[in-house]
């Protein structure tokens, strides 16, 4: 395994793949730093470009963007007090006050270093947890897969921000949208309303582009960025004292572990990871009253955790084909485009892809550290980019992207339609993450459920006769019922992820 990993590092460091990782990381940081544009949107938009590339180059670009965009959000969170990407929400609480007090460089550097540590810790988890997990997942049959997907759907609904009822509704709508197309068992058209174009159902990429990119762009076009107070970096060089960093060592590792764990949980990523880690850091701190006024601990907790979710989230994706975060949904779409199916067999059939993910993530993590430490003065200028000029160009790219996959105009309409759906979701503050996860997991759940029934001669009790399946089912029931007994939502409620 170590040998495979090392040789993968060798491959990914050769000029072409390395260039793609560099490009990905750089574009991720830039987009992450511009308020209003986020990583999910960037990765979705870039996906159609990778069509026809070598899969490893595509992975290099997209994973680079994933890592970069999670990190880049720090810049506007610090200097504008606006999270550049949703996962930097908690960073604003302490980084912005610290910057206001005249220490923007310190806030940024702490954030960057914490991001790097978070990425590294979760990378270790990815490397060492994935192979045994894939082995376990290989023994999963349809019963187990169905139950696992159910857990994932419950998890995303109960943990996403806002009311659980809205989240569940969003998940159900996502599931509904997944139904049209050819029935997986009878191969007959289903809910196509007689339109031949509907035989393929709604294209994954068209839906993703619509709900992430188009919705975001239309919202940006409608808003003129409020003239927020911009904090400028002074010209002088500044480096955080090593002793300050070592004081944060324990916090960094703890936050990274929390982030990794949250990342592994299916469907939820950066923003939840940083919330949980921030709250934990505050509760365990000797000086909790300093949180929110610009303390080191707050910045470190949030930034270490959100970067740590990246590696964590890749674990269920690589080993089981179940997305650990929203961007993973898009990565799965990318792999499918290259005819690679993430899942337990990936380790056996295409180990170079698995190790490609691992080495890319580490390379991107290191690149991120260097680009952000040394390029921070340039990155700080990005907060002035007027989003409105970018909107028409990006919208055009959306249209091209939606068309390119299947060469169907129908997909463009689907994309625009879901762009409007996304706007409705926003105006009713329904979280979009459960919708997307429901949409991508439903075909997996349905096929496995029906396959399981065929295997069990239509005996539903068979689900409970299998220990792993029964455990998952009980777990999902518990998650559904907990909110009924617990009246109060977590103390920190935040706005919707997208």
């Amino acid at each position, binding site marked *: 395994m170590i040998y495979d990993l090392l040789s993968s590092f060798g491959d990914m460091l050769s000029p072409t793949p390395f260039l793609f990782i560099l490009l990905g990381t750089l574009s991720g940081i830039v987009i992450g730093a511009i308020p209003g544009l986020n990583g999910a949107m960037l990765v979705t938009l870039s996906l159609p470009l990778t*069509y*026809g590339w070598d899969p490893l180059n595509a992975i290099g670009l997209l994973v680079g963007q994933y890592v970069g965009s999670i990190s880049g959000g720090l810049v506007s969170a610090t200097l504008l007090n606006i999270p550049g990407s949703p996962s930097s929400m908690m960073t604003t609480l302490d980084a912005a006050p610290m910057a206001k007090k005249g220490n923007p460089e310190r806030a940024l550097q702490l954030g960057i270093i914490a991001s790097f540590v978070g990425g590294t810790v979760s990378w270790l988890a990815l490397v060492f947890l994935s192979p045994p997990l894939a082995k376990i997942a*290989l*023994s*999963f*049959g*349809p019963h187990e897969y169905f139950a696992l997907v159910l857990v994932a759907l419950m998890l995303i609904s109960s943990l996403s921000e806002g009311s659980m009822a809205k989240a569940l509704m969003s998940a159900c709508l996502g599931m509904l949208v997944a139904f049209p*197309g*050819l029935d*997986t*068992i*009878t*191969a*007959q*058209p289903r809910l196509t309303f007689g339109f*031949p*174009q509907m*035989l*393929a*159902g709604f*294209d994954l990429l068209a839906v993703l582009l619509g709900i992430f990119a188009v919705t975001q762009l239309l919202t940006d076009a409608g808003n003129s960025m409020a003239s927020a107070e911009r904090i400028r970096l002074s010209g002088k060089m500044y480096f955080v004292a090593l002793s300050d960093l070592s004081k944060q060592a324990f916090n960094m590792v703890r936050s990274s572990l929390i982030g990794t764990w949250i990342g592994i949980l299916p469907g939820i990523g950066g923003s939840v990871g940083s919330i949980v880690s921030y709250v934990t850091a505050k509760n365990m701190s000797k000086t909790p009253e300093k949180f929110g006024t610009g303390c080191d601990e707050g910045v470190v907790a949030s930034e270490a955790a959100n970067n740590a979710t990246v590696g964590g989230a890749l674990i269920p994706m690589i080993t089981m084909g179940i997305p650990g975060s929203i961007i993973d949904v898009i990565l799965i779409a990318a792999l*499918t*485009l*290259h*005819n*690679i*199916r993430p*899942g*337990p*067999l990936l380790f056996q*059939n295409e180990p170079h892809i698995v190790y490609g993910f691992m080495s890319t993530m580490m390379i991107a993590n290191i690149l991120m550290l260097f680009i952000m430490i040394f390029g921070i003065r340039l990155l700080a200028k990005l907060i002035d980019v007027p989003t409105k000029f970018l909107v028409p160009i990006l919208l055009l790219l959306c249209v091209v992207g939606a068309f390119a*996959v*299947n*060469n*169907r105009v129908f997909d463009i309409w689907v994309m625009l339609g879901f762009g409007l759906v996304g706007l409705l979701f926003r105006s009713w503050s329904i979280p979009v993450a459960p919708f997307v996860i429901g949409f991508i997991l439903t075909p997996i759940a349905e*096929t496995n459920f*029906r*396959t399981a029934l*065929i*295997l069990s001669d239509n005996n539903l009790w068979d689900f409970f006769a299998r220990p792993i399946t029964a455990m998952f089912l009980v777990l999902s029931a518990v998650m559904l019922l907990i909110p009924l007994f617990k009246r109060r939502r977590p103390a920190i409620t935040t706005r919707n992820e997208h």
Partner: protein
Amino acid sequence: MLRTTLAAMAAATMLFSAPIGALAESYPDKPIKVIVPNGAGGSTDITSRLVAKEFSEKLGQNLAIVNMGGGGTAIGAMEAAKSAPDGYTLLSTHEAFLTSSALGVNTLGPKSVKPIAQVAKEVIVLTVPKGSEITSLAEFYEAAMEGHSDANLNLGVSPGAANHFFFLNVLSPIDHDVTFIPTGGGAKTLKALLGGTIDAGVFAVSESIQAIRSGDIVPIALFDKNRHADLPDTRTASEQGHDVNVGLHYVWYAPAETPDERVAKLASVLTEVISDEAFRNTLVERSITPELITGSDLTAALDARFTETKALAEKYVVGN
């Protein structure tokens, strides 16, 4: 009606403008679009692209592969059938086109297109997991036969797709009682076979050769006239006394009304492509068997395959 009028007008224009020979010479004078009704990266796509590359060199005109997946090839195949029949839109597909037509998902059916040439085929192999009690086709039939003693055999298929019909075809000599498990296409069915969810699967040699070589799955019977170069020890079905002949055939089509001389031109160039020794080797390296069939032989073969598929669909699939 409109189409006949247009055709008549076109014919009239031809009469007055140029002799037929000169017109045939000028075709093709612009790039040709080839619709592959599957997503990019799959076996149909890769094979089509391999052929297209060689084809365009020999034809002296570019071929643009357009992937239009979904609906079990129905969307792309119907799009091709409805395109202008001028020889500038072609379709490259395989058995899935026949099965989706037999199931009525493709509502236009095989009559909507005209075959140009069959370029290659994937030989199909019946496999079981290692350690299975089934070691021959006879034992497979015994376990699948109605009134068998043990539990039903679980066979992994993608319902309504080619591998489902391969099994139905293989099982047609007997009255079978088996359970079809909807595991999906080749890669997913392979996973189910390795994970122990199913008892047997049919695969193209190209998609299963790796797992066979590693010993994880065991080939029981090969459905072809001759043995396969990559599986020299696997006996064919006819060697085992059963004359079952199934395969995945890559066929190029044009819309039904495409002029015969244009189809003939394309067929002759495709013949050149497939006769090229270097190109044959490219296919063989991928465990794909180059096999050229054109003209009335091809029409007859496709008609027979479709009749058979339709009969199986009506007997076992539709309404079940």
